[in-house]
């Protein structure tokens, strides 16, 4: 655990059809840090993750992964790194989706082994070693030959976490990883994320699980209407006097 900065976002802006969805977002994430992003639906949390993971082009600002500039605006125009550089930069992060997005025609094993074999060029043996290790740690060893469609939502989400981890990313993003799950299944996924936090995996987690965010995060960001309304340690945020934040939290802790 160093003080190395893995991710820097400066003045990120994004509009859809003239409506500003992200207004001047700035944040940094250091190695080993767990950052949670909370906020009402429509506040731009997913858009922030999508811009950070290069799924969406930002309209302004700077995005830097571990010193490598992925995108920046020069005199008003966005400039993205070359295709080749972006390919390298993509290997730095992983993304876990709300609805898993596993490949249904692949077995669990192939879901986890194919991506690093294709994009990192590691051997099949190495890919299987990684996958078996991850499946063991996530309690999915007996599911390695199953197809995603035959698994519960919680199992699918754990597989998708394993798939992301097999790429050995520096940072893992989660976009509401438990929102599609029943309470019992939510618990099993949160347990996995807690464990990753205890192993000092660097993570940015968009979540509505307030109690979980409080326990697991080093820092929490509260977003509203495309901007960061409040930011701080869990203690700071949960005792904040910010009226909007209190109102938002009230809905979840009731």
């Amino acid at each position: 655990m160093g003080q190395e900065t893995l991710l820097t976002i400066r003045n990120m802006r994004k509009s859809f059809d003239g409506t500003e969805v992200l207004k001047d977002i700035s944040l940094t994430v250091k190695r080993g840090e767990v950052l949670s992003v909370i906020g009402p639906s429509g506040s731009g949390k997913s858009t922030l993750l999508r811009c950070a993971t290069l799924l969406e082009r930002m309209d302004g600002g700077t995005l830097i992964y571990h010193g490598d500039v992925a995108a920046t605006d020069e005199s008003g125009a966005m400039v993205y790194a070359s295709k080749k550089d972006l390919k390298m930069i993509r290997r730095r992060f992983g993304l876990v989706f709300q609805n898993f997005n596993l490949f249904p025609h692949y077995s669990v094993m192939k879901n986890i082994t194919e991506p690093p074999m294709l994009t990192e060029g590691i051997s099949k043996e190495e890919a299987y070693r990684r996958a078996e290790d991850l499946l063991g740690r996530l309690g999915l060893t007996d599911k390695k030959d199953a197809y995603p469609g035959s698994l519960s939502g919680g199992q699918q989400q754990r597989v998708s976490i394993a798939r992301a981890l097999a790429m050995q990313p520096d940072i893992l993003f989660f976009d509401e990883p438990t929102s599609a799950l029943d309470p019992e299944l939510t618990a099993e996924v949160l347990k996995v994320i807690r464990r990753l936090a205890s192993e000092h995996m660097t993570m940015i987690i968009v979540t509505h699980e307030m109690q979980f965010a409080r326990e697991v995060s080093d820092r929490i960001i509260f977003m509203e209407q495309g901007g960061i309304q409040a930011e701080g340690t869990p203690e700071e945020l949960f005792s904040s006097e910010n009226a909007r934040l209190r109102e938002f939290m009230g809905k979840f802790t009731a």
Partner: protein
Amino acid sequence: MLKQLGNGMAVSVGIFLLTLLFSLPLGLLVAFGRMSRNRIVSSLTKIYISIMRGTPLMLQLIVVYFAPYYVFGVSIGGYRFPAIIIAFSVNYAAYFAEIYRGGIESMPKGQYEAAEVLGYSRAQTFFRIILPQVIKTVLPSITNETITLVKDTSLSFVLAQAEMFTIAKQIAAKEASIGPLMVAGIFYYVFNFIVAFVMERFEKKLDYYR
């Protein structure tokens, strides 16, 4: 008589197989054209598809066969069979293209996004993630078209191609009997029975997931 019909049957099967061989991949290409972001390409393919689907296949056969002579003033020896294959392939490619397009457009965006974040190239995403799933979803529609194709091969009679139906008609006229046509009917039925069986096997094979 059965020997003649047998020869005709071989020709019909040949038309069927060659048409599938060319139109299935060609249809994918047409589907790409139809979904192209290039306006000109997508408009042209759209017009092509609408003509292929909006005019009789019988007419298309005649046009393809006679066009070299009437338009370019050249007559090509032995062009009859190739003309039939071209007309069928180009026509069926249009139908297959629309089926593929429906299948491709029905794929959830999340599949593309997951692949993108994992570092798959566009080609890897299409051929490894999207296409295999599309094939599974469109297979029933492909089966339907394939069964229609078996029956459509009989349209080759307009170019007097000696396939099953043409021969059956000739023999029936010569012998003033409906027998040969009945035999032809049985042949098409059995042919389609086999096609349906084979396609069902394919569908079963793809049933391993979801």
